[in-house]
């Protein structure tokens, strides 16, 4: 089915609720609906199996317009259907929760409520999502009239201290935010019965910096460098997604040579990211030899990235309207040489992770997620593909040069940790192949075209496949030198649902592997998630924990 047919079908499904239909871009349809119809409209799309909920954008139209807008983006291959719900800005803007139909929506809804002040009725957990514990009530950073002075820390009422770390026969094991198994800060609480996990909750937001708001205070070009620093591992993904959206809005035609170079760097980035992941997960399994090996080989691709772009981590190869550096015959030679070495090593790792008996005991049959569960939890990227779910933006909705230099889709039916290794390593072989093809067939032409200082008014959706899954950007311009709103949804956020839900019933010792198995990126999602279960524990705040610790110490 092509994009037009998909959009037509969405329009038919949503016809009973439609107030107004807009077609901002050829692959998008925006349907304005009443807040009261939201749950039914979502149910209708879900019943017809039309795509998946990719993100919820909260938009403040400003004090003059006096309204807020919640935009529910559903994606099906290249087609994007957005349900737009208009809400009053003053008083109590209310919207019904869709989390019972789409579990992943609970994160988006909590973000919507705390960032924009929309009350989501019936959402499983209405507490703070990723703002700090000392954030004042009634201050919403994504509102237009937000001032940083309003956000001064306040003392907040906190829940009661639980009786020790024990609830009935269960024991609560806290992990993080600083923990040897976590290279980034995240906090987890596992309720365990013996060795078996019976409940899990997590709190992120330790690296929430407020980037979405910051983009509104910087101009289009400065934002490129700010967004690159959302994540040091997939920095190129973020610049690509942002540049692609801004170029669409500015109607700038980027030369094919530049797009091909962007795809090439994205391929190298995928290699460095997956090799990094391989090392970290091997380390969690106690297989430090593989960790050291894969990180040694990763330096090959780091050196190559440095040779091509001048930087090891934040490459800054993209500029608005094209790329900065060209690839000459000398670079092609080193790329081929590096690929020869990497292909050989990747094949070796593929052999190791599928044949090493000790390692297989830690991966085979652990954390198995079926295809249906992957769909339900809204998994993305290699996490979804390892469960046999064919979901890859590069294939479903080819952007940039992916039409000219396509990649093949790698899936595995098994859904356990071993499958995740196999999928990621096979993807690397595909990336190596694509990189070679691009180098040998680099289209001739300019590297970049001129990009205007002001971008015409409009809204666009830009989707890019990061090493971890689909990154979603919603960019709105009002014709100024800065964007009006940039909404970013990174893939790690969606994948958390699957890990936390699959944790129950596993041994505590498997958790570091399972968490790392989805390749979490805390700096990307910087959000907080809680999965509530029966006989759940209570959370202690820092002040309580400190008081409790002192009390405990004194009473010894």
């Amino acid at each position, binding site marked *: 089915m092509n994009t037009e047919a998909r959009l037509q079908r969405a329009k038919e499904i949503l016809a009973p609720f439609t107030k107004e239909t807009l077609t901002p871009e050829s692959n998008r349809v925006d349907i304005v609906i009443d807040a009261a119809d939201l749950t039914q409209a979502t149910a209708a799309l879900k019943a017809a199996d039309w795509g998946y909920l990719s993100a919820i954008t909260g938009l403040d139209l400003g004090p003059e317009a006096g309204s807020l807008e919640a935009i529910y983006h559903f994606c099906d291959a290249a087609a994007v259907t957005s349900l737009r719900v208009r809400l009053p800005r003053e008083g109590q803007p209310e919207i019904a929760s869709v989390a019972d139909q789409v579990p992943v929506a609970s994160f988006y809804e909590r973000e919507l409520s705390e960032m924009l002040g929309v009350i989501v009725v019936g959402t499983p957990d209405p507490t703070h999502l990723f703002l700090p514990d000392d954030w004042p009530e009634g201050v919403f950073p994504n509102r237009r009239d937000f001032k940083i002075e309003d956000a001064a820390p306040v003392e907040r009422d906190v829940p009661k201290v639980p009786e020790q770390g024990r609830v009935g026969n269960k024991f609560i094991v806290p992990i993080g935010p600083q923990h040897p198994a976590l290279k980034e800060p995240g906090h987890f609480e596992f309720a365990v019965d013996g060795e078996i996990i019976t409940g899990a909750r997590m709190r992120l937001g330790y690296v929430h910096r407020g980037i979405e708001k910051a983009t509104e205070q910087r101009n289009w070009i400065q934002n490129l460098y700010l967004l690159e620093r959302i994540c040091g591992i997939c920095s190129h993904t973020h610049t690509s997604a942002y540049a692609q959206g801004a170029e669409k809005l500015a109607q700038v035609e980027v030369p094919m040579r530049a797009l091909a170079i962007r795809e090439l760097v994205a391929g190298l980035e995928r290699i460095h990211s997956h090799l990094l992941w391989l090392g970290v997960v091997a380390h969690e399994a106690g297989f430090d030899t593989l960790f050291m090996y894969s990180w040694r080989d990763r330096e090959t691709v780091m050196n190559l990235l440095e040779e091509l772009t001048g930087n090891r981590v934040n490459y800054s190869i993209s500029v608005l309207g094209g790329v900065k550096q060209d690839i000459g015959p000398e670079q092609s030679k080193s790329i081929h040489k590096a690929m020869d070495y990497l292909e050989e090593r990747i094949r070796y790792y593929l052999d190791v992770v599928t044949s090493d008996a000790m390692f297989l005991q830690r991966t085979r049959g652990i954390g198995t997620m079926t295809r249906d569960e992957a769909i339900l939890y809204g998994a993305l990227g290699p996490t979804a593909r390892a469960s046999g779910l064919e979901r890859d933006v590069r294939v479903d909705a080819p952007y940039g040069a992916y039409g000219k230099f396509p990649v093949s889709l790698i899936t595995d039916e098994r859904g356990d940790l071993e499958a995740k290794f196999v999928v990621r390593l096979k993807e690397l072989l595909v990336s190596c192949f694509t990189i070679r093809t691009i180098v040998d067939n680099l289209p001739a032409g300019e590297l970049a075209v001129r990009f205007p200082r002001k971008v015409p008014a409009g809204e666009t959706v830009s989707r890019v496949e990061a090493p971890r899954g689909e990154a979603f950007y919603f960019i709105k311009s009002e014709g100024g030198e800065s964007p009006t709103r940039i909404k970013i949804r990174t893939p790690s956020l969606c994948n958390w649902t699957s890990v936390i839900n699959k944790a129950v019933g596993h041994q505590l010792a498997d958790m570091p592997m399972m968490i790392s198995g989805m390749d979490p990126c805390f700096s990307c999602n910087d959000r907080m998630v809680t999965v509530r279960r029966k006989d759940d524990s209570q959370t202690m705040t*820092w002040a309580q924990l400190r008081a409790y610790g002192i009390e405990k110490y004194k009473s010894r």
Partner: protein
Amino acid sequence: MIATPNLINRVVSGITTWARVNSPWIIHFNSGSCNGCDIEILATLTPYYDIERFGIKLKGSPRHADVLVCTGPVTRQARDRLLRIYEQMPEPKFVVAVGSCGISGGTFAGCYNIVGHIDEVLPVDAYIPGCPPRPEAIIDGVVKLLTHLKNGTRPEPIKPQLGEQA
């Protein structure tokens, strides 16, 4: 020769310094970084750069660590945790701030969830600039710190001059 308490103290402190300089164990905490610095720190520990040849080991617990390596600006949520980790480390302890964000807030200066840079929260002994710093720069910074430890002095950090903030 009769061992006087003075002599014993000198010998013991000599052994302690020798041990500290030859095996400084580090703990790493990301208080709001983008990961860029963190993966470069990890890269220095792996075979290509191999910082272990200086006796440096990454430890899991603050109680085992001599040096706290911090990355990123300090977010409001991470501030208390960073302080707590610092408090848990045994004396004498040293703090290394890695990356532009740790030094000045970098590109995130002025964001609503940022408390500030690391030396607004903790006393910093060494700054390693860069976005992110190359592994060679990280090794250089750590070795400079070790040189000071050998001489038994606490380094006087030279904070990199900041350019104009955007």
